[in-house]
C-alpha cells in the first residue's frame, strides 16, 4: 500500500495506475449530490446567483480543493447538539450520480482526486486525463472502519443541506482506497463491465 499525503502533486497523480492500493493522509472535504449541484449552478454554470453564505463558503473551499480530493460520502456524525463533531460511520456513496458535474468541478477547482464507490464514466475519465486527476475507490459499506481513519472534523459548511449532504472538512490518516480510474485513461470499471458483458452473452446462449 502506497502512502500519499494530501494535497497531491501532478507527478504523484501521474505515477499512479489502475489497481494501485493507496493510503491517504491529510485534509479532505466531503461532497455529494446537493454539493455538486450547488457548485455547478452557482459557480460553474452560474445559472443561479450566489445567496446567503455561498461566496464565503466558495472562498473557503478553493484552497481545500486545489490539489485536493473530494469524498462522496454522507456520514453518520455524533456530537451534533454540542458541535463537537465526530464521524461515527463514513463509507462512500455511489459516485455515478455526480457524472454530470464531476469533470467540470475537477477543472474548476484543480481537484486531483475523487473518492467514492462504483466508479464514474467517460466525462470524469476525460477530466482525470486533463487535470490530471484520478478516481479512488473506497470500500463500500466499510463505514466504521473508514470512520476510524478520520482523526478530526475540522469544520462543516452548508449544514442546511442535511447531515449526509453537508460539506465536512476532515483530517484523515491512512484512509484506504484503490485507484480504479487513472490519469492515463485507464478505468477498471470499463474493463470489468466489458468482460462481464461478454460473459453474460455466453451465458445467455446456454
Amino acid at each position, binding site marked *: 500500500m502506497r502512502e500519499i499525503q494530501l494535497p497531491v502533486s501532478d507527478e504523484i497523480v501521474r505515477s499512479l495506475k489502475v489497481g494501485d492500493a493507496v493510503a491517504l493522509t491529510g485534509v479532505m472535504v466531503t461532497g455529494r449530490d446537493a454539493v455538486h449541484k450547488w457548485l455547478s449552478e452557482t459557480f460553474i454554470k452560474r445559472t443561479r446567483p450566489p445567496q446567503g453564505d455561498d461566496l464565503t463558503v466558495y472562498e473557503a473551499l478553493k484552497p481545500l480543493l486545489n490539489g485536493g480530493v473530494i469524498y462522496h460520502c454522507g456520514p453518520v456524525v455524533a456530537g451534533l447538539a454540542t458541535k463537537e463533531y465526530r464521524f461515527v460511520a463514513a463509507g462512500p456513496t455511489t459516485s455515478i450520480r455526480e457524472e454530470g458535474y464531476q469533470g467540470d468541478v475537477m477543472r474548476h477547482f484543480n481537484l486531483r482526486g475523487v473518492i467514492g464507490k462504483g466508479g464514474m464514466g467517460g466525462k470524469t475519465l476525460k477530466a482525470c486525463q486533463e487535470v490530471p486527476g484520478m478516481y479512488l475507490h473506497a470500500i463500500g459499506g466499510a463505514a466504521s472502519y473508514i470512520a476510524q481513519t478520520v482523526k478530526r472534523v475540522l469544520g462543516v459548511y452548508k449544514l442546511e443541506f442535511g447531515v449526509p449532504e453537508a460539506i465536512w472538512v476532515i483530517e484523515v490518516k491512512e484512509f484506504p482506497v484503490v485507484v480504479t480510474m487513472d490519469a492515463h485513461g485507464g478505468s477498471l470499471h470499463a474493463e470489468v463491465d466489458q468482460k462481464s458483458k461478454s*460473459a453474460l452473452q455466453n451465458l445467455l446462449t446456454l
Partner: protein
Amino acid sequence: MLDLKEPVLELVRLTSTDLPPDVEMSLRAAVEQEEAGSAARSALETILKNVELSRAQSTPICQDTGTPIFYVYHPEGMSTRKLRQLITEAVVEATRKSYLRPNSVNALTDKNTGNNLGDEHFPVIHFEEVEGDILTIELMLKGGGCENVGAQYSLPNNELGAGRDLAGVRKVVLDAVQKAQGQGCAPGILGVSIGGDRGSGYAASKEVLFRKMDEASSDPSLAAMEQRLTQESNQLGIGPMGFGGKTTVLSTKMVGMHRLPASFFVTVSYMCWAYRRRKMIVQGDQVRYE
C-alpha cells in the same frame, strides 16, 4: 404488558451494528475464494474488519442505514396503532443515538426530516396477525445504493431472448446482475420474485431476503435455480466492489407468486453485503433476538 420501547430500540441497534452470523460466515468463506494480494480479496478483508469493529464499538456497519423495513407479526387483540407508535419512537431514539443516519428526505422539498420519520411509508411497517401469543418483529435495513440497482422485467423480453418460463427468468436475473456491476456494494444477495403485479412483486422480492443464507426455496425447481443463478452470477467476474473477482453474489432467494394472464413480472431486489436483518421475539416478559 412489558414495556417494549427499550427492546425495540435494541432491535434497531443490533440490526444496524451487528451483522448476522450467517452473513458473516458467508463473507469469510468468500475471502478464501479470492486470490491473495488481489483488490477483491483486500476489499473483503476490509469488509470483515469493518464488521468486527462495528460490533465491538456498536457503530453502524454502513453509514447508509437504509430504509427501515419492519414486519410485525402480532397476536390477536394487540393494537397496531400502539405498535406503530412504539416503533416510530424507537426509530427516532435510534437516530438520536447515531445507530441510524437521518435518512428520510421529502422528495418535493429536499428537506431531511432529521429523525427518520416521514410519511406513512417511512419507515415501512407491515402488520400481520398471527395465532398464539408470540409477538415477532423483524427489521431489515435496505440501503440506497443496492436499492437503486434493483430491477423489474416484464416478460417476454425480446432483447434478452427471455420467454415466460424459468429459463427466461434466469436470463433477466443475470442481466440485472451484470447491469448492477459493483454499484450495489457487491458481493450481493438476490431477492427474486416471479409474478405478482409491479407493487407486490417488489414487496415479495424483499420479503424473501428475510430468509437465512442457507435456506433454499421449498420448491425444488426454484431451489435448483437459486443455486444456478448464484454460480452463474459469479462467472460474470464482477467481484467484490466491482473490482473483478470470483465473488459477485453470495446467495439467491426466489419466490413464485400468482400473476394476471397478461402479465409476467420478474423482480430483482439486490441486497448489498451489509445484509442487515434481525428478528425480535417476545413471549410473556421474555424477549430474545435472532
